[in-house]
């Protein structure tokens, strides 16, 4: 593959056939960005050629890298575009090329990222580290995408495409404890809750997996008391602590820790570490 040889390719010979990882080009935001990019290309020209799949002279060619630049040329009604050729490569390599380019640039939407990660995950036989090496995503993030793909209901997957956060999807899956109907009912409620309430909902479902959705929501809406216990010491003990800390030049917390450790060892609750 020689991608240093830049050629001028007629736009009519290029057909989008899905080698590019991006599918979010119809959103209003993307349309706006596309107009901006077209304007920029009009003023400054195309600074970086696009990468096409196939061999020069054998159209139609598919766009692997530079789909937005290609569409911007269409907006400008240009006749040709500067491009290089990848040669004949398989779908996986085309996806990797497209992915490595897009991951570094404008943030991809959920659907595209999900598709890319799960495709790579299957290709690399569930090896998260290889997916990480190609995408730059953390292992934790990769696991989240894979888990959602495997466990989310169709309704949740659909909502994710419309902007539901991955965190909320995971909460519904966690709280439903494998019950898909419950997951669908939960996701409607979760979207109406504050983050504090969402956390409590998942906690309640862990404590009581069989609780109904209305009960879980009711519990979630009740703020909990987070208690910090302050022990009051009688005056004589308080004075004795003061005396000890002054004499030993340590603070009261350290003294309390030493006393606790000693007591636990003396009563055989804590074994001394060897060597």
């Amino acid at each position, binding site marked *: 593959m020689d991608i240093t040889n830049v050629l001028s390719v007629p736009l009519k010979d290029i057909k989008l056939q899905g080698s590019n990882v991006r599918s979010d080009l119809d959103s209003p935001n993307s349309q706006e960005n596309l107009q901006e990019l077209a304007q920029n290309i009009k003023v400054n020209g195309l600074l970086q050629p696009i990468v096409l799949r196939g061999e020069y002279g054998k159209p139609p060619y598919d766009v692997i890298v530079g789909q937005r630049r290609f569409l911007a040329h269409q907006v400008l009604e240009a006749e040709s575009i500067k491009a290089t050729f990848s040669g004949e490569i398989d779908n996986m390599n085309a996806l990797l090329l497209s992915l490595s380019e897009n991951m570094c640039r404008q943030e991809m939407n959920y659907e595209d990222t999900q598709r890319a990660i799960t495709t790579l995950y299957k290709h690399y036989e569930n090896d998260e580290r290889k997916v990480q090496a190609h995408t730059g995503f953390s292992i934790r993030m990769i696991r989240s995408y894979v888990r959602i793909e495997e466990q989310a209901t169709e309704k949740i997957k659909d909502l994710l495409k419309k902007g539901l956060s991955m965190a909320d999807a995971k909460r519904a899956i966690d709280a439903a404890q494998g019950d898909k109907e419950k997951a669908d009912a939960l996701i409607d409620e979760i979207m*109406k809750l504050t983050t504090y309430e969402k956390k409590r909902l998942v906690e309640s479902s862990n404590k009581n997996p069989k609780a109904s959705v209305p009960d879980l929501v009711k519990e979630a809406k009740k*703020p909990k*008391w*987070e*208690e*910090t216990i*302050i022990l*009051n010491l009688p005056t004589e003990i*308080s004075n004795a602590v003061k005396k000890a800390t002054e004499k030993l030049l340590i603070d009261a917390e350290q003294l309390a820790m030493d006393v606790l450790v000693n007591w636990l060892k003396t009563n055989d609750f804590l074994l001394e570490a060897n060597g």
Partner: protein
Amino acid sequence: MDNNKVNEATARILLSTKRKSRQYSLYEIASDILFLKNELDGINNVSNLIGITTGMLNQFLSVLKLPTKILELIKQRKIESVSIAHTLSKFNDKDAIQLAHLVLKEGLTSQELRIILPFRRKNLNEPINNIVKRVLDSKNIKVSVIRISESNLKCKSSELEERVIKLIGKENLLAIVSSNSNIDLKITAGGEKIIREAAKGQQLSFQDFINKIIN
């Protein structure tokens, strides 16, 4: 490229990125970062020069998107947290101004702002004050429990309640619970603060002050 100006801007940023030792306001730092971004052809080069991630630099830059009223507060150094400024920049101007005042008056934290943001986006027709109230009311309540051994209590329980209410106010006393030979005084975090300040005022330790109350 004006090397002197680049060096000056770099020095100012390096002197001011840590909040506690910051010499310049967030506005000045953000302006310097923008200047360097333009001079050095991109945020990646600024990141390499200063050693701060592009994500953090972009957070500083978001200060420049804030409405004028908030920029004034930033210039006066009333708002110093880049995290707060960055989160405010994600709200519309009207909301951001109201929230900035709540940051100053009510001590709204950056974490609370981050939680308000997605909730606001789902409830665009609600007044922002209702949104803030709804979010804050849903927070867990931090309770300080002062555990007193019943044998140490030298006054009646009702008397103790009166003394505590007089000191911290009824709203800060959540409950008095008796169990396992202990009396638990459950008070709000604000109530604990009042007791600590009262103890300090009498030059007593917290423990000694509590002993004084229960005797």
